[in-house]
């Protein structure tokens, strides 16, 4: 007798399958990856145009600008995290599947970070160079952005799960997530600014990594609970 457990894919397979599927979907629709990146580059272009081209000013406000732009670009891509799954019924399958939902939600979040957060981190040096950031600062910025975008993906997944299927979802998502994202923004931007001033940066990086681990531990459960509520 083959029990259900024998034929069932394990936890790891389920987790990887969700990631692979989402990455494949993202690969087939490159616009979903590219549009937030273009948005990020464009917001970073808007600030020098609005504030003025003086290089001293840009080197002071550069870290903040990059961080705000990254935050907004992440929000933009979060909106569609669960939307297509909700519309075509895949979300029901995820919830019904034998693997625990928090794990699958984490898988979706990881895929989101790989397709939205990681490209942002990789593109950010290009922007940093135009803001006259020195090499060491660029390294710190990429490190803080890595931890920061992971945290934002995890936090944002909760918001996306809460607002999936609502008509006014987009604006609502920003309203829910932005206040919660402020610690990440504060520590991210300030750490880069400290690096630019040749100050010690370890405290900020420690905080961001700790926040990231806390979010990694708790957020998938909140996302799963929110998904079940939204899909009732």
């Amino acid at each position, binding site marked *: 007798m083959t029990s259900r457990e024998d034929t069932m894919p394990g936890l790891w397979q389920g987790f990887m399958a969700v990631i692979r599927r989402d990455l494949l979907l993202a690969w087939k629709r490159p616009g979903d990856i590219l549009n937030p990146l273009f948005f990020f580059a464009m917001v970073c272009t808007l600030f020098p145009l609005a504030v003025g081209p003086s290089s001293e000013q840009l080197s002071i406000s550069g870290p903040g600008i990059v961080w705000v732009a990254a935050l907004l670009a992440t929000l933009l891509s979060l909106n569609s995290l669960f939307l297509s799954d909700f519309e075509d019924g895949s979300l029901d399958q995820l919830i019904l599947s034998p693997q625990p939902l928090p794990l699958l939600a984490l898988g979706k979040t990881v895929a989101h970070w790989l397709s939205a957060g990681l490209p942002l981190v990789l593109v950010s040096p290009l922007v940093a160079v135009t803001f006259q950031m020195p090499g060491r600062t660029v390294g710190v910025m990429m490190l803080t952005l890595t931890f920061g975008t992971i945290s934002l993906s995890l936090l944002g997944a909760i918001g996306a799960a809460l607002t999936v299927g609502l008509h006014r979802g987009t604006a609502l998502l920003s309203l829910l997530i932005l206040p*919660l994202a402020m610690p990440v923004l504060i*520590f991210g931007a300030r750490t880069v600014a400290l690096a630019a001033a040749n100050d010690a940066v370890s405290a900020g990086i420690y905080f961001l990594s700790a926040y990231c681990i806390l979010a990694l531990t708790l957020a998938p459960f909140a996302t799963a609970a929110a998904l079940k509520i*939204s899909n009732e």
Partner: protein
Amino acid sequence: MWKFLHKLASPPHFYDLSAKIIPWFVVPGTILIIYGTIAGLFYAPPDYQQGDAFRIIYVHVPAAYLSMLAYTLMAVSAGIGLIWRIKLSHAVAAAAAPLGAWFTFLALITGSIWGRPMWGTWWEWGDPRLTSELIMLFLYFGYMALRAAIDDTTKADKASAVLALVGAVNIPIIHFSVEWWSSLHQGATIVRADGPAMPTEMLFPLLAMILGFSLVFGALLLGRVRSEVLFRERRSRWVKNVVLASGEQG
């Protein structure tokens, strides 16, 4: 004990009980606020540094205190509602949110008015408490917006409960990070009138105001929960009876 709690959680019983309790909040609360206002404005000695301007503390501190108390109450009752599926506690959470938002707003406005003579500016980004109070207001807005966006009450209850709990986990982190951020802020250092401990003529009106505000908050909350319960149970028989009974009286 459990029996009492179970009985309390039933809407008709709560509706009757709260009608009897509310006066016990309103009367002492009003007396305390009247005493606190008179004693605070006329009998408390002027501050040695801030003169009479410090007297706004008698509104500001109770409002700020209640803005946090209301969020705690909201998150705790939302959690209770989510875990034990008690509808009444969802109604409490829903009723607490707008009150909390108003107290947060009041704390921000009075803080800003206080800041004008003390710091010479309406708004000081360097002060961590102003900034985290502002973020608190945004959290309330997010909670209420999510609730308003979902038509189905049960679903709105559960979704907003998850949000309230996520926010409750984040609030200490937000406070801490805003404090760290402003301690790095260069520029004007704020003059703090920490000075010696408050004399009792100053302290007693403040305590009276805090207690009075809390009691009035309790009364307002109970009143809001009552109408929330009436609305949610509008199709039930006991609400019909309540309406009929009030019709006979009037």
